[in-house]
């Protein structure tokens, strides 16, 4: 309470310096948190990817061939071989890798642009979609190559004028009629694995689409029972890969799989861009860039704020002299100054954090344009932003900023000679 009163008094006595400190802190935390939030959306759980913490992703296949190397997606058969009989897995879904662009509509009307993901029936177990109307398609639908579809609410509204489109006929790709089996709440393109506006059973075409026997357009999402099961699952995949490799070698001695450690947890997914490279390469590069950005965003405001703190403390030299003369220890002095500064930093940090949350919520489409342009409008729901981890990061950066900006001035203030300080002549 004493400290709050002291801060209030300081603010009133030096409003400009107080405001500059507050604004500078808010600005620094604002920008840092924008970077953090943009990074966080890759890992934080939200519907329909609420189980991200338990996901393992199998994306690519890289092989040595008789005349070089070849890499790409997996064929249906390869994916089945890799991801069968996994101990510790709750469900495994095989689906196409990213939605393909198509058109959806009713005959005679303008066709809407749509993104189509073909999936097996386990997809609906792995991902938690919110069904507004109807149900997902079944394993029997997938086996029989049934022309049924689950569509997003906004597509249902665009095509049929109502979200209750169950049972209606939807033409995909202009000419192929599908019966709408279910309508789900819209999915943000930030849900990079599950995003689409139309989901249809994994077609026979997609299953038979292979090149060099082993490659295709299929990807696997494994839902582990628990994160602690990851190792067991990976062991099973490694065993399956070894079997696959033996079969490959039996067909052609020169061919062999180059293993990059797939499947990967959600936090590595963003780096698993290249099929012929381990995501570790991209992850370490990205980590370096992020560290440099954080360093710039923290260091320069910290120097600024440090200079401001120094100025504020110089006004209070005599007060500090008196406190020291009355027996206040150096450690206590440092602690008081750092704590006092922390309160200001936290106030500025709170303003910065709130502004960054509002900015990401309002300008998500602009912020995520570069990487997610394929998904059209990017909406960020409040629950995607209001995560404990976000507050944790904000708090951590506030502490760091506070330590960097007040540590040195506090240490110097505590080292002042009380006699000189009372006389207003600190050395």
């Amino acid at each position, binding site marked *: 309470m004493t400290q709050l009163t002291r801060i209030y008094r300081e603010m009133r006595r030096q409003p400009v310096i107080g405001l500059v400190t507050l604004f500078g802190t808010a600005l620094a935390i604002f920008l840092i948190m924008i970077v953090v939030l943009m990074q966080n959306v890759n890992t934080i759980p939200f519907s329909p990817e609420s189980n991200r913490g338990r996901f393992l992703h199998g994306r690519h296949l890289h092989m040595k061939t008789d005349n070089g190397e070849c890499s790409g997606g997996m064929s249906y058969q390869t994916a089945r071989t890799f991801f069968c009989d996994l101990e510790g897995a709750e469900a495994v879904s095989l689906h196409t890798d990213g939605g393909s662009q198509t058109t959806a509509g009713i005959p005679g009307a303008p*066709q809407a642009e749509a993104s189509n993901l073909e999936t097996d029936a386990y997809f609906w177990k792995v991902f938690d979609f919110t069904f507004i109307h109807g149900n997902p398609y079944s394993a029997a639908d997938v086996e029989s190559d049934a022309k049924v579809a689950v569509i997003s609410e906004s597509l249902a509204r665009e095509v049929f004028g109502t979200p209750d489109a169950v049972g209606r006929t939807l033409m995909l790709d202009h000419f192929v009629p599908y019966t709408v089996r279910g309508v789900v709440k819209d999915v943000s393109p930030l849900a990079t694995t599950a995003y689409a506006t139309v989901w249809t059973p994994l077609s026979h075409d997609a299953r038979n689409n292979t090149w060099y026997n082993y490659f295709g357009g299929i990807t696997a999402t494994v839902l582990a029972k628990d994160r602690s099961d990851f190792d067991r699952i990976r062991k099973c995949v490694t065993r399956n890969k070894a079997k696959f490799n033996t079969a490959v070698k039996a067909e052609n001695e020169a061919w062999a799989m180059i293993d990059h450690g797939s499947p990967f947890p959600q936090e590595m997914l963003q780096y698993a861009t290249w099929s012929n490279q381990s995501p570790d390469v991209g992850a370490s590069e990205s980590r370096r860039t992020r560290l440099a950005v954080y360093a710039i965003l923290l260091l320069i405001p910290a*120097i600024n704020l440090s*200079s401001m703190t120094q100025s504020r403390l110089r006004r209070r030299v005599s007060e500090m002299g008196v406190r020291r003369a009355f027996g206040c220890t150096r450690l206590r002095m440092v602690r008081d100054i750092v704590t006092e500064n922390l309160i200001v930093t936290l106030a500025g940090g709170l303003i910065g954090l709130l502004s960054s949350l509002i900015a990401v919520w309002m300008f998500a489409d602009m912020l995520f344009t570069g990487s997610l342009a394929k998904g059209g409008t990017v909406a960020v729901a409040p629950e995607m932003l209001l995560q404990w981890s976000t507050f944790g990061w904000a708090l951590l950066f506030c502490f760091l900023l506070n330590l960097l900006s007040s540590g040195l001035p506090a240490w110097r203030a505590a080292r002042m000679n009380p006699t000189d300080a009372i006389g207003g002549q600190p050395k």
Partner: protein
Amino acid sequence: MKRKLLTQIATEWKSNMWLAIELLLVSVVVWVVTDNLWVKTELRLQPMGVETDNCFKVGTALVNADSPAYDGQDSTDLTGMEHMLKLYDRLRHYPGVEHAAIVLNGTPYEMNFSGSNLITLDTPDTIMTTRNNIFTVSPEYVDVFKVKGSHGETTAQLKEMLAKGEIITSFGLSVVSYADLRTIDQQNYEDWQRITRPAKREELVGHRMSFAGYGENDNNYPVWHVGATIVPIRRMEYEEATGNTIRALDLTNPELVCQSCFLVRVSPEARATFRQDILKESNNLFRSGNRFVGEVTEISAIRELTQSEEVATIRNFIVVMVFLLLCIFLGLLGTFWFRTQQRVSEIAIRKVNGATGADIFRRLIGEGLLLLLIVTPVAVLLDYGVAHYLSEMPMSDYNLPTGRFLGGVTITFCLMALMIVLGIWFPATRAMRIDPATALKDE
């Protein structure tokens, strides 16, 4: 005046050191951002080689065999080309369409690169292109995108050349001569770079060319006559021209025709509704056999999508630069506000001794600018170090001409100076208004 300022700066060296470090760091980062933006702006200002306003890409697809609308009697392999040409003809005559071309490779902003190297067949020393994006298009392509010759050739002349079976190449196409090629280690990237040069117009125009590795003796590979050079067509606004050659699409080759798309220029009045108008006809006018028009995309939309990463990077750079400049502004505002408070009596004495308000103002601003002048040489050295580091990175094509370096340093200095002036402006104005009598009475 300068000496007095220097003395004052030296006296308050502890707080000035913080300011100097901050100015130094920000100066280097602002220079890096400025240099990057300079490069991007320079690229953006280069001609694209094509005019894409009111232009659309029209793509076709085949009716899915699962559809009730699928025509089982229509063998897409044999009749596919006829259907494509029928659709092309209908598109050319559709109201509002000014020009339409059938194109295998050459859609602006799609970033395709169909690289094949050509060699001259009739020059004393054989010349080979090293980076050559081959566009295979119908002659109307030059009408659609208003392609211009590099030496005054009109679009009509270029179209005529393509129709005659001649090829047109971009001006300044990267080439190497076989004579030079024999002198280097061909596995060495830097050696290749050293002998690569832009071709002179007369080295290409009027000469016969063929794909490298094949010659006139190989009847399967055609020999072309180079008709003219054109303004290079770039793949996007943030990339250097790759160099290209335009050749006519063989409209009798079913394989090539069926893989092609249409590129059209429409009248400004037709632009707004063109996409919906065409797609509405997907099952009627724009369907032939099992082939139909399934995609109509404005080139500006392709451009936006392709360049979105670049635009986002530029935006992020600008945000960081504005943030750092704001830091400078706030830092100086706070520090000098405090200094003005500290120096009330000093300012009052100066005024009593005849200094005007303007003198006080100039002195404070001068103090900030002098600090910037002191750190600038160090910052320039660091900038140079960063540039050197970037150019030494493996496979780096970063180079820094002196003009750009000096330009970047000047812009950085001016931006920093502006922030310093703005930051000190308020405290300095406050200092100007100090009444010496009141200030000294308070003392």
